[in-house]
């Protein structure tokens, strides 16, 4: 392509600085190391256990749902499968609000229990954290396992049917053995670095994740030494898990073509159909009810929104759009450069603790800038960084395909450097580029991470405003904010994704 190599090198350098450099900055700023206390080790234990249980439940429940989806056809099946991709771009705080409305102290479940004369259940602590993680990751697991089912050639089912052979042992078990470890590990990794869920539903000595412990160390005690040590522990945990995943192929969660159906000859007994539709109904209720509650309560709460919601919306949009631009620029540069260094550097944000990166950035900019003023710029950089692995995973294969198809024609015509990118590559990758932009924008819009560490009233984003409304028990106003946040996140995703599709020539 005859592109200069320095932009790629520069982005890799920035990635290293942001992930490893910030960790070093926090370590350097911490003047004395008192070591980790018992509470910190409890956090480590809690983090691993909750991630393990969350992954286990998500995958376990996903198996019957995926099987039902793979062998039953019904109206709305395609829509449901599309909907399974939605939790990825759903703001965590909105989902938590929806879950509280269903499973919380005054939620639907407890009202029903009370009506039946049973005692109430609480979803704060371990069960709440796991519940929220299953809510987010069950759909991902279903999509990954469904992919496995649909990858079994239809001829095999036909052959098994003609031989009267058991499909389960012959076809399904080997497929599950291949797919499940990767699905489990992906979700385990995601739950390992979870912050916003633990911040809202966890807390206390029994339900604190490492990320939350880092937040508390910085925010409450400004104990950078402990934050840095915890960050190193967190880094170690994710590196170990990521290294294991190096040997296990991680299945793809957001591929297309999942709405294909396969004709099956087994599983046609009435009770099997009932079981299948039972699982589908359960999954739909579990996913849809909280969102319905967000909408229902949100509409009622719109009038209670404080006037500070407007500047918060403005800030959130500005943060989301800027970080999307940064993220896509970096992804494009990395995808164009390709190679091993890019792969390693782009996986680093997955292992990094967003709170440590944020804290490190504050430490680094502190000599020049008031930390409170840096809250929004730091959030922008953080959000771009955290969305980068996902955007790159979508954009890089598209760039490679464009090159595989049109490199010779472009070379012959002397299309090189920037002209090549503008005339050939960018138009060819429009769809994934739009999709990647949608992901980055929605993730940033709903982010409640670093911003919670340092922002004051003047840097309040919409998720932070909503968190504070919840904290001060203004539930109606929080419901309104949740609805606005949900609408904006989905709208941003839709606009970008749509922008990539309109008038795109396949």
């Amino acid at each position: 392509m005859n592109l200069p190599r320095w932009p790629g090198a520069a982005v890799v350098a920035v990635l290293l600085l942001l992930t490893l450099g910030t960790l070093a900055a926090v370590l350097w700023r911490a003047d004395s190391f008192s070591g980790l206390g018992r509470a910190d080790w409890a956090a480590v234990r809690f983090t691993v256990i909750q991630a393990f249980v969350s992954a286990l439940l998500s995958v376990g429940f996903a198996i019957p749902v995926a099987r039902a989806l793979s062998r039953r056809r019904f109206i709305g099946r395609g829509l449901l499968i599309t909907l399974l991709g939605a939790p990825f771009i759903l703001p965590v705080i909105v989902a938590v609000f929806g879950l509280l409305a269903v499973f919380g102290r005054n939620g639907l479940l407890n009202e029903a229990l009370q009506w039946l004369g049973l005692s109430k259940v609480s979803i704060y602590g371990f069960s709440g954290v796991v519940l929220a993680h299953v809510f987010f990751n069950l759909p991902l697991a279903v999509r990954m396992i469904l992919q496995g089912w649909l990858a079994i050639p239809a001829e095999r089912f036909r052959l098994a049917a003609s031989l009267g052979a058991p499909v389960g042992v012959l076809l399904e078990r080997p497929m599950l053995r291949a797919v499940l470890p990767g699905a489990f590990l992906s979700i385990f990794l995601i739950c390992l670095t979870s912050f916003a869920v633990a911040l809202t539903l966890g807390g206390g000595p029994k339900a604190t994740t490492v990320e939350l412990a880092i937040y508390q160390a910085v925010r409450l005690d400004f104990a950078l030494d402990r934050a840095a040590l915890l960050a190193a522990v967190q880094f170690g945990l994710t590196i170990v898990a990521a290294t294991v995943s190096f040997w296990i192929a991680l299945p793809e969660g957001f591929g297309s073509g999942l709405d294909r159906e396969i004709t099956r000859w087994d599983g046609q007994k009435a009770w099997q159909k009932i079981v299948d539709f039972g699982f589908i109904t359960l999954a739909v209720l579990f996913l849809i009810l909280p969102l319905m509650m967000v909408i229902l309560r949100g509409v009622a709460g719109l009038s209670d929104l404080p006037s500070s919601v407007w500047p918060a919306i403005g800030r959130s949009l500005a943060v989301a759009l800027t970080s999307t631009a940064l993220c896509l620029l970096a992804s494009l540069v990395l995808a164009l450069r390709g190679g091993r260094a890019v792969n390693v550097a782009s996986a680093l944000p997955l292992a990094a603790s967003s709170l440590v990166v944020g804290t490190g950035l504050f430490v680094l900019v502190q000599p020049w800038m008031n930390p409170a003023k840096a809250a929004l710029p730091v959030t922008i950089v953080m959000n771009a960084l955290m969305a980068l692995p996902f955007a790159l995973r979508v954009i890089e294969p598209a760039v490679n395909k464009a090159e595989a198809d049109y490199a010779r024609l472009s070379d012959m015509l002397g299309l090189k450097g920037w002209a090549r990118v503008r005339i050939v590559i960018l138009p060819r990758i429009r769809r994934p580029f739009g999709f990647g932009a949608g992901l980055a924008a929605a993730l940033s819009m709903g982010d409640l991470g670093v911003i919670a560490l340092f922002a004051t009233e003047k840097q309040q984003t919409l998720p932070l405003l909503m968190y504070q409304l919840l904290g001060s028990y203004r539930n109606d106003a929080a419901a309104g904010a949740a609805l606005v946040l949900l609408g904006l996140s989905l709208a941003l995703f839709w606009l970008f994704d749509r922008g990539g599709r309109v008038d795109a020539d396949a």
Partner: protein
Amino acid sequence: MLTLDALEITQGDFRLGADMSFEAGQVTALIGPSGAGKSTLLSVVNGFFRQTSGRVLWQGKAIDDLQPDERPVATLFQDNNLFPHLTIAQNVGLALGPKLSFGSDPRVAEMLSAVGLTGMEGRKPARLSGGQQSRAALARVLLMDRPIVLLDEPFSALGPGLRTEMLDLVRSKLLTPDRCILLVTHDPDDARRSSDTVALIDDSEVAPPVPTEELFANPPERLKTYLGI
């Protein structure tokens, strides 16, 4: 004159040698079984594959060290000859340089009319038939105006009638006294109808080009085996 001087091409177990010249003002057909290295030979001429030894010369000057776009060569590939996201005019205009604005150059319209595509300037390739797409790609090769033209089975996806039509168009528009055209084909009929000379590729060796009529009137053993006669 295009000269392949003691050319050696190797790729894994694959080996191909060539030592010959192709006259300007002629269409030379390269025929041979698949896997014999017809396309690889073209890739060495247009600069996408590096030979192990030997030289490629045009009018006595080596062109080996030139980039694909700097060589006096234009190629019609087997597929992907047009960018699907650009209009026909923009696609053809790229022959003049790496700018989309060349699409409105009057020479583009001229070439499009030469291949019978007047009025199609603003369309994208998907809205053209297969034959029209081939014509558009041909218009770009015409506008590139390079002395060596390589046709790597570009019309193989077309039906026999359209293919004949395209090959006739190549002869009538593209063939000039100072231009050398190489046509890769696996169809002896294409070679018989459209080429002046034929070079047979087989047994790791490119045979020097022989006048087409002579070759088919008196086929050597190797050609008989290929044709199955």
